[in-house]
C-alpha cells in the first residue's frame, strides 16, 4: 500500500472533534464496501467451514481478529497441533503496517478522547485509513469520518463470513481445496499494492528464493517468516522504500 501522508495535521495538543455528521458521511461514502468485503468474507466463511470450524467460531474469527490478511495467513498455517507461536508471529508481522497507520492518525487528528478513538481503531482497515487520509486533505480531519468508513467494511466482512458459512450451496464445493487455495489467491491480490517500482524486484526475489529453499524442510509457516525476513533486511539495507 502506498503510504501517502497528508500534510494537514493538527496541533498535537488540540482536542479533535468527533462528530456524528462526519460519521454519517463516512458511512455513506464506504457503503460499496459492504458488497466487496462481503464477497471476500463469504469465501472466508467457506474456508472456515472447510477447516471444520463451527459457525460461532468462524464468525468470531472475523469479528475478533478482523484482518483479512492475517486470517488468510493463519488459515494457511492450519494444522494439528496448532502452530500458535508461528500464527501469532505471522499475524503481528502482516499487521505491522497498522503501527504506521495508527501513528499517522495520531499526528493527523491530534488529541482525541480515548472513548472515541479506541473503539474506532478496533475497526481500522487499510481502505478506511486510506479514505480518511485522503479526505483529511480536503476537509477538516475528524475521527468520526474514520469510524463511519470502517463500519460498512466490518459489516461486509463479518456478515459475509456468516453468509458464506451458512450458504447451502457450499455442500457441493470441495471445501478442503477452498481452504488450501483461498489464502494464497487472497495474498496475491495484495501484491500490486506493495510494489514500489523495479527496486522492489531484488528483495522480493530474495524473499521468494529463501522461502522456496526452506519450504521442503521447515514447512510453510517458518519458510514464509524466514524468507520474508531476509527480503525485508535486503530492502532495509538499500536506500528508499523499495
Amino acid at each position: 500500500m502506498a503510504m501517502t501522508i497528508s500534510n494537514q495535521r493538527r496541533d498535537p495538543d488540540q482536542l479533535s472533534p468527533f462528530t456524528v455528521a462526519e460519521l454519517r458521511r463516512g458511512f455513506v461514502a464506504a457503503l460499496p464496501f459492504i458488497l466487496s468485503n462481503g464477497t471476500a468474507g463469504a469465501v472466508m466463511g467457506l474456508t472456515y467451514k472447510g477447516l471444520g470450524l463451527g459457525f460461532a467460531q468462524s464468525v468470531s474469527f472475523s469479528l475478533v481478529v478482523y484482518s483479512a490478511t492475517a486470517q488468510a495467513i493463519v488459515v494457511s498455517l492450519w494444522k494439528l497441533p496448532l502452530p500458535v507461536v508461528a500464527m501469532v508471529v505471522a499475524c503481528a508481522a502482516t499487521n505491522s503496517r497498522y503501527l504506521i497507520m495508527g501513528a499517522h492518525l495520531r499526528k493527523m487528528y491530534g488529541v482525541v478522547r480515548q472513548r472515541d478513538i479506541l473503539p474506532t481503531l478496533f475497526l481500522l482497515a487499510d481502505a478506511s485509513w486510506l479514505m480518511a487520509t485522503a479526505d483529511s486533505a480536503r476537509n477538516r480531519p475528524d475521527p468520526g469520518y474514520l469510524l463511519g468508513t470502517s463500519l460498512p467494511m466490518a459489516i461486509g466482512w463479518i456478515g459475509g463470513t456468516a453468509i458464506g458459512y451458512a450458504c447451502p450451496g457450499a455442500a457441493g464445493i470441495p471445501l478442503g481445496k477452498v481452504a488450501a487455495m483461498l489464502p494464497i489467491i487472497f495474498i496475491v491480490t495484495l501484491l500490486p499494492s506493495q510494489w514500489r517500482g523495479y527496486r522492489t524486484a531484488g528483495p522480493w526475489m530474495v524473499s521468494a528464493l529463501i522461502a522456496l529453499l526452506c519450504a521442503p524442510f521447515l514447512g510453510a509457516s517458518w519458510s514464509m517468516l524466514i524468507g520474508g525476513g531476509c527480503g525485508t533486511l535486503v530492502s532495509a539495507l538499500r536506500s528508499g522504500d523499495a
Partner: protein
Amino acid sequence: MRNSEITILIVVLGITSYAMRAGGYLLARFIRDDGNFARLLRLAPGNLFVAFVSAGCLSGGRPMLIGGGVALATMAITTREWAAVGAGFLAAMIASSTGI
C-alpha cells in the same frame, strides 16, 4: 482439536491484531514517519507476502500457479480485490478439477 484451543487462539490473535492497530496510535510520539523502524514496518508486508505465495505455489502445484496468475492479472487490470479473488479462485478450481 478442542473448541477451547480455537477460542484461545482467536482471543490471542484478536489481541495481537488490536495491539498493532492501537499501538501505533498510542506510541506515535516515539515513532517517526521517516525513521528506520517505520521504514522496516513499511517494507515487511510485501516481502512476507511474496515468501508466502512462493511457498504456497510450491505446495499447491500448477492449479495454484494458474489461480495466482489469474488473480494477479485481474487485480492489475481491475484493481478490485473481490474480482481478483473470485477470478483467481475460479481458475484454480477449474485447473484442479480438469487435471491441468
